[in-house]
């Protein structure tokens, strides 16, 4: 990238979503490109978490921004653009039917290369991989409404208000769905005591103190 191009990119990145949307409305394609680079990875992760298919997730990114480009004139840039884009991506992810004969790789496969890059002992890596597999399998047992809330919060880092905008429902509903999802996941994970999850009701905590042994087991040694 030349110095002038880098300066231009930095200048564009400094602008807010609102400014970029207004500039893109005036057919400033560089502003639209800046929006694309700002949100493409988040949307890709969301699509990957829901579809578990990297190529499908790429198509979701492209389709989401194609829709955004068509809707530029009626976009409401006063609010944040992120919930709008994520809502489109969620709808596209759930409307996408798996292609016939396609063997969808698991999410662990998609992230395997990243995990291998971490510097840990083999036993710890194996334990983490098993934990990841169990947790992701438990997430798959959730319904779409609850899974979206979990993915948006724990993967994409959206707060509850933003999730409410994405799924287009009151924030109280989001809280309820998150609680339900955590309860269901806890029930599934309780079947794996070898990973540090104790069976439900097996040990009653002492009132007045929150025992964090299970948390420490899941977290592992302090990093």
């Amino acid at each position, binding site marked *: 990238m030349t110095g002038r191009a880098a300066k231009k990119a930095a200048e564009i990145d400094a602008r807010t979503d609102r400014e970029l949307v207004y500039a893109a409305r005036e057919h400033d394609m560089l502003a639209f490109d800046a929006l694309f680079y700002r949100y493409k990875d988040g949307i890709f992760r969301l699509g990957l978490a829901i579809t578990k298919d990297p190529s499908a997730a790429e198509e979701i990114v492209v389709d989401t921004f*194609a829709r955004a480009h068509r809707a530029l004139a009626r976009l409401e840039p006063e609010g944040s653009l992120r919930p709008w884009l994520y809502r489109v991506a969620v709808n596209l992810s759930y409307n996408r039917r798996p292609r016939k004969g396609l063997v969808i790789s698991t999410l662990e496969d998609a992230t395997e290369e990243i995990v291998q890059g971490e510097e840990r002992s083999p036993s710890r890596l194996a334990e983490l991989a098993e934990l990841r597999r169990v947790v992701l399998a438990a997430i798959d047992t959730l319904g779409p409404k609850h899974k979206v809330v979990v993915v948006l919060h724990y*993967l994409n880092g959206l707060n509850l208000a933003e999730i409410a905008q994405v799924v287009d429902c009151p924030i109280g509903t989001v809280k309820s769905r998150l609680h339900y999802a955590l309860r269901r996941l806890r029930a599934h994970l309780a079947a794996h005591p070898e990973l540090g999850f104790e069976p439900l009701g097996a040990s009653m905590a002492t009132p007045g103190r*929150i025992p964090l042994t299970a948390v420490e087991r899941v977290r592992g040694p302090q990093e």
Partner: protein
Amino acid sequence: MACRQTQERIAVLLAGAADRRERLEIESHTSACARCATAYRDYIATSVALDRAYAPLRHATVALSPARVRLAMRVPEPVPAPVRFSRVVARVNEFALAAAVTAFAFVGAGSVAPKPAITDEAVPTDVLTPNMHVGTMGDDQSFIRWFRIGRYATPSDLLDPAVSPRSLADETPPATPERAGLLR
């Protein structure tokens, strides 16, 4: 605060959306309720497990270009200003060249074209038709036949109007076989 309400608030607390008052209420309830204290611990463990399960995916990136979006929408690529300027110059040159060629063709045609002749009204415009024998394809075949067999033909054959040009008898003397042979 009821246990169910407390457990719902625990999920909100773990999501970072609970205020200080709610947090104190949860802590006071869990200090007195073993069941909710267990739920609190379990939710924390689940929340941490979720966080860890998604940790590798948080670093996932996609190598996509905005050109893919434009390709999907059939939107033309933005052209840099210098390239745009050179394209405009090239187009202007094309038009100038085309105009010059067209002008040259018109001017040249005007100077080279023959002047229209002064025509006499008394002279019929078509002067060729009355003096021209318009033959048919049969006449040509007859001429060729006459030309090829002339050497061996008798004068009477050559004078036969069926195998000779119409005016041959008037303009040429009867040919002897020897004379006809010279025509070869």
